[in-house]
């Protein structure tokens, strides 16, 4: 075999592999991808159960007095939540009455499903979570995911008993948002994730009369447009706005909640019609 051909042999073989891969039907690729994911899922899930067990044993070391204090604090919290639930029921009744009178379309109903975080995958390229529930709990792609601080992200893939969530800090997430107290929508996109710093995103199409700075932040919330996220959920704080190059709008930066990076449990809002 000529020496020159022998040197090119690895690249010719590579070319054949690339060509073969390009003609593989999408169905087979999709099936293979799901198979490979399910192959890795038990590893992540087992590790998350091991972490939960470790946490359980560390909690067992707490003294009785600490538990009594925690129980007392929890009882107070429950009392205030009971009151909030009563008010919520009253307000939902009021909304239903107004919708009936004005013949407005009703908001999408959601079922809340809590899920443990199995794996965090926060690279500069993407920001994702894997959670420990999936098709077995009727999760659907696109479902909003929230926590006590606001929006976490949305479900991007659903597997047999796990699901992946694209975080709002990920550049793959784009949604309509409004500044609290305003109704004009703007576009939010994640993607600013500095090392050792807070995650963030950018906003575009901000009306010219909205001002914000690091010292005078504005709360950015979901607009409800698009029908994926319910309105009013916190996205983050607008820390900077400046006129964009076209002069018609402003663009700016949003700082996200620092707790997003250390979440252990999230809530998936499963649309009721998909259930």
């Amino acid at each position: 075999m000529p020496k020159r051909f022998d040197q090119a042999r690895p690249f010719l073989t590579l070319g054949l592999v690339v060509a073969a891969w390009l003609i593989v039907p999408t169905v087979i690729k999709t099936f293979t991808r799901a198979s490979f994911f399910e192959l890795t899922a038990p590893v992540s899930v087992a590790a998350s159960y091991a972490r939960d067990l470790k946490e359980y044993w560390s909690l067992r070391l707490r003294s009785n007095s600490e538990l009594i204090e925690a129980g007392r604090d929890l009882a107070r919290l429950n009392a205030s939540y009971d009151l909030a639930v009563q008010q919520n029921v009253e307000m939902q009744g009021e909304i239903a009455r107004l919708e009936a009178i004005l013949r407005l379309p009703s908001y999408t109903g959601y079922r809340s499903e809590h899920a443990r975080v199995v794996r965090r995958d926060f690279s500069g390229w993407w920001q994702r979570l894997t959670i420990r529930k999936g098709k077995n709990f009727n999760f659907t792609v696109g479902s909003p995911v929230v926590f006590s601080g606001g929006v976490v992200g949305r479900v991007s893939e659903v597997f047999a008993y796990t699901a992946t969530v694209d975080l709002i800090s990920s550049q793959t997430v784009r949604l309509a948002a409004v500044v609290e107290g305003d109704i004009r929508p703007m576009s939010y996109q994640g993607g600013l994730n500095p090392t050792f710093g807070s995650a963030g995103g950018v906003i575009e199409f901000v009306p010219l009369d909205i001002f914000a700075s690091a010292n005078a932040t504005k709360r950015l919330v979901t607009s409800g447009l698009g029908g994926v996220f319910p309105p009013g959920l916190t996205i983050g704080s607008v820390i900077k706005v400046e006129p964009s190059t076209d002069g018609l709008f402003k663009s700016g930066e949003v700082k996200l909640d620092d707790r997003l990076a250390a979440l252990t449990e999230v809530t998936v809002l499963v649309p009721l019609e998909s259930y």
Partner: protein
Amino acid sequence: MLRFSLIFLSTLLLWAVTAQLNHALAPWRLYVFVGALAVTLPALTFPLKTGLLASFFGGLLFDAVAPVSFGTHALLFALTHAVVFNFRDRVPRDDTLSRVVIALFANLGLFLIFSFTQVARSPAPASLWPRLFADLACSQICLALIAPWFFAIQARALALLADDTHRYA
């Protein structure tokens, strides 16, 4: 086939270890990518077809858990394999230190090429590079630390199949 399976299982182990490491590093917004480790030993010691397939399927494992077109990692791993295979007769490849150095260069190339494929999706690509360089530095340090252990595991596993331990060790 058995050698291929062992390399694939070792890649699965590598993925599991780095996944747990990345889970722990997430609050500091650091990320470790050591994909080149899955390619280095097959490229340096295996026949072309077996090694290329092992690298390709290892890449598919990384693809399955990443939001990229299925096959992106696999094709990049296969490309890295072909490059390393091409010059393996011209570099020292029998001692661990040279394997680690080759893995470091391969990882550098993989990381940068992969970053270029992903950076266009960012709303602020310029602000992404400092983070990527920090991740790259972290990845290279981690790779240098775990590579001897990983190569030893691969060599021991392969030695179970054949009596030519010296070939991989």
